[in-house]
């Protein structure tokens, strides 16, 4: 419960909350980026350097840009979204709240039994590489395949269905 | 000792060629053709190198390569050649360029066509060099695939049906053969030809199989016979023997002529090769038991196919039946060699003659039939696909050179002395007559009928008054003449000096005849 943790947690929560509540979609994405950078910083704080940088690379460098592109191409940047019925909003928020309550309850009741490791563990790139190439080689391959498939699939989906019609 | 893997290299050259062609794509058809031809010529050169390096008096197989492959199945990659294998390699490498030249004018899917041809060549090489049933069988079956597509995709109007018939027929035979070999494998745990032959020669093979698989309702002889018949069916369909031959005329006539050349020149030899390499060493006893029916089959093949050829009007069908007829002589020779002679030295010498004759006839038939179909291809090219006997007449007037050269080839097929066909037939008859007199004497009728239908072709196509349609038929071009010269020259060379081939295969023939178990 260090100050840095609280600070970063505050940034993260602020960013994500803003992302979920702002009206302008571009702002949402920018806020989300802030939240995700905060999250990456949290990872760094937890000692997972590689994951942290990967988080930045993937989310800031790719997903956010992708989302921005999607927003631009669907012309939904203008805050024209008419808020749906308040009951809809309310029920959603309520459910989310209940979920949080339940999870918080679970966390508070579940972590007591856990033996907590306080030593800073090591997760150098070397170790990660070794682990990826030995213990996790099959998942790695599967992920590679998945990414390829996703790449092709996304390309095909984003292509115009009637080629050359326009 | 590590030596250069000649045979593997030879087998891979066409595969590489096929890949190159496919990679090249169809933009430049001329280039594709030349490259394909170049690869087949490389294979020919390699074969000639092998021919040169081959030790003609050594026992057993040469240029052997042995690698373990699937240890749990005892399947090894074992290749090697003796005189017979070498002869077949040479034939294949000669026939494939002929086939390519004959399909030079193919316009559709050129790279695919030529790469399939090269693949087929590779499969043939594999079949003729494999010494382990397992991968021999793989090549044997694999060769069907290019052949099937070659017939189906580039063939005539009924090619799909013919290709299917061809495939199913040979597949049924192959499956029967596979069953037999699985039975043998279950009993002996080996797929190796030489080991199996060794077992068979010492009389242990069939008892082992019967001991393993015998069924109480079957006598051991019957069990062995059933296994033999399975293997026999596989080869008999491929050769083909009457009555397993009906796929052949339709396949030959529907296939594009270049493919027919491959089918008749090289692929039909696979069946005979199987008879010589597998059935003779392994099932000699069983063949002796059913020798009489086998001989009748051979005689029926010779005579009926000759008569059937007489009734055809399509040049390709005639030549197809003529092919069956010629291979029937080979079958006669093989069956004669099987006959039990009790070690009589004079008769053993006859077996040598028959064996040599069979080898020579295989090669000669390949060469002659391939060239014959080549001429059909050139005729088709000139006439836009017409090849019926009744479509022509008097062509000699406009295409004298074509007529002359094709006449040479036709007479070679007829067995005229001085050309290659004669000596093989002579040796077969010479060896077979003392061994199986009546069958041989009856088969001689085939020689007569062959003469009748071949002269019929000459008469109806080239002689008589010239049809109005063909006044402007072009004669052979210089290029065609030049490409024909090697083939026809080889015919003359073999007719005048058969020692060229006999000198190489003789030792193998002697060994094969001697290795037959006589008891």
């Amino acid at each position: 419960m260090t100050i840095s943790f609280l600070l970063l947690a505050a940034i993260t929560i602020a960013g994500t909350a803003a992302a979920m509540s702002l009206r302008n979609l571009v702002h949402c994405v920018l806020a989300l980026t802030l939240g995700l950078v905060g999250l990456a910083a949290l990872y760094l704080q937890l000692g997972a350097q590689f994951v942290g940088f990967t988080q930045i690379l993937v989310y800031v460098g790719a997903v956010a840009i992708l989302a921005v592109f999607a927003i631009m191409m669907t012309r939904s940047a203008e805050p024209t979204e008419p808020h749906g019925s308040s009951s809809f909003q309310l029920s959603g928020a309520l459910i989310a709240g209940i979920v949080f309550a339940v999870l918080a309850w679970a966390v508070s009741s579940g972590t007591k039994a856990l033996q907590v490791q306080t030593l800073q563990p090591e997760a150098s790139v070397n170790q990660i590489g070794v682990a990826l190439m030995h213990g996790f080689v099959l998942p790695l391959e599967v992920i590679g395949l998945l990414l390829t498939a996703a790449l092709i699939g996304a390309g095909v989906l984003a292509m115009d269905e009637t080629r050359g019609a326009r | 000792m590590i030596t250069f893997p000649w045979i593997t290299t030879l087998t891979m050259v066409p595969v590489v060629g096929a890949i190159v062609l496919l990679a090249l794509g169809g933009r430049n058809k001329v280039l594709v053709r030349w490259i394909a031809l170049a690869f087949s010529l490389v294979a020919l050169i390699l074969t000639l190198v092998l021919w040169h390096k081959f030790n003609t008096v050594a026992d057993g197989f040469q240029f052997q390569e042995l690698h373990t492959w699937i240890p749990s199945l005892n399947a090894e990659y074992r290749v090697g050649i003796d005189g017979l294998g070498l002869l077949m390699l040479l034939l294949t490498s000669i026939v494939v360029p002929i086939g390519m030249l004959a399909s030079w004018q193919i316009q559709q899917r050129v790279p695919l066509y030529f790469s399939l041809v090269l693949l087929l060549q590779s499969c043939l090489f594999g079949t003729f060099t494999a010494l382990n049933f397992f991968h021999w069988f793989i090549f044997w079956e694999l060769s069907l695939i290019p052949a099937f597509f070659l017939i189906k995709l580039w063939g005539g109007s009924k090619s799909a049906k013919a290709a299917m018939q061809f495939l199913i027929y040979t597949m049924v035979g192959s499956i029967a053969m596979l069953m037999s070999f699985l039975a043998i494998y279950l009993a002996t745990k080996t797929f190796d030809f030489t080991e199996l032959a060794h077992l068979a020669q010492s009389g242990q093979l069939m008892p082992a199989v019967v001991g393993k698989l015998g069924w109480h309702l079957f006598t051991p002889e019957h069990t062995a016979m059933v296994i033999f018949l399975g293997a026999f069916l596989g080869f008999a369909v491929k050769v083909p023997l009457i009555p397993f031959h009906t796929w052949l005329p339709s396949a030959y006539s529907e296939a594009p002529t270049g493919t027919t050349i491959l089918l008749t020149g090289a692929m039909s030899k696979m069946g005979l090769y199987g008879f010589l390499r597998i059935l003779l060493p392994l099932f000699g006893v069983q063949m002796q038991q059913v020798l009489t029916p086998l001989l009748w089959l051979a005689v029926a093949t010779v005579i009926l196919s000759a008569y059937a050829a007489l009734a055809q009007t399509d040049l390709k069908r005639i030549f197809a039946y003529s092919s069956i007829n010629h291979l029937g002589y080979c079958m006669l020779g093989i069956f004669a060699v099987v006959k039990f002679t009790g070690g009589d030295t004079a008769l053993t010498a006859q077996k040598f003659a028959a064996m040599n004759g069979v080898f020579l006839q295989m090669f000669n038939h390949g060469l002659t039939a391939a060239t014959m179909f080549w001429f059909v291809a050139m005729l088709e090219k000139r006439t836009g696909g017409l090849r019926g006997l009744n479509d022509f007449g008097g062509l000699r007037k406009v295409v004298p050179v074509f007529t002359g050269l094709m006449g040479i080839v036709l007479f070679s097929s007829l067995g005229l002395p001085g050309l290659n066909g004669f000596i093989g037939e002579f040796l077969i008859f010479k060896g077979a007559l003392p061994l199986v007199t009546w069958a041989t004497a009856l088969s001689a009728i085939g020689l007569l009928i062959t003469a009748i239908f071949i002269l019929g072709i000459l008469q109806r196509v080239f002689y008589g008054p010239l049809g109005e349609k063909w006044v402007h038929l072009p004669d052979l071009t210089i290029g065609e003449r030049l490409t024909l010269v090697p083939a026809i020259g080889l015919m003359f060379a073999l007719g005048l000096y058969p020692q060229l081939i006999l000198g190489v295969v003789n030792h193998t023939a002697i060994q094969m005849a001697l290795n037959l178990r006589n008891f």
Partner: protein
Amino acid sequence: MSPMSGYLLLSALLFSIGLAGALTRRNAILVLIGIELMLNAANLNFIAFWRYGPNPEALTGVMFAIFSISVAAAEAAVGLSIILAVYRHSKTTNLDKMNSMKG
């Protein structure tokens, strides 16, 4: 309160925020972003458990996080392109108006 439960609570909160966004917003892109957020919350959980768990040398948590980031990236790509395709067809990104399966 142990450091770990702080992270876990944060993760739970992130998850809930993401869920709330996904449930309340009408825009498909935002729903997708919400889902991404939920995934990130899970990642945080993984890292936290790895960090404070009994077997940090096994790196399982880190691995899981890496893989899940990859999956999330793929999911985002495909999801957004689907949204693009749908938009091209129905000219809207509003989920309420995208309830017809007819093409």
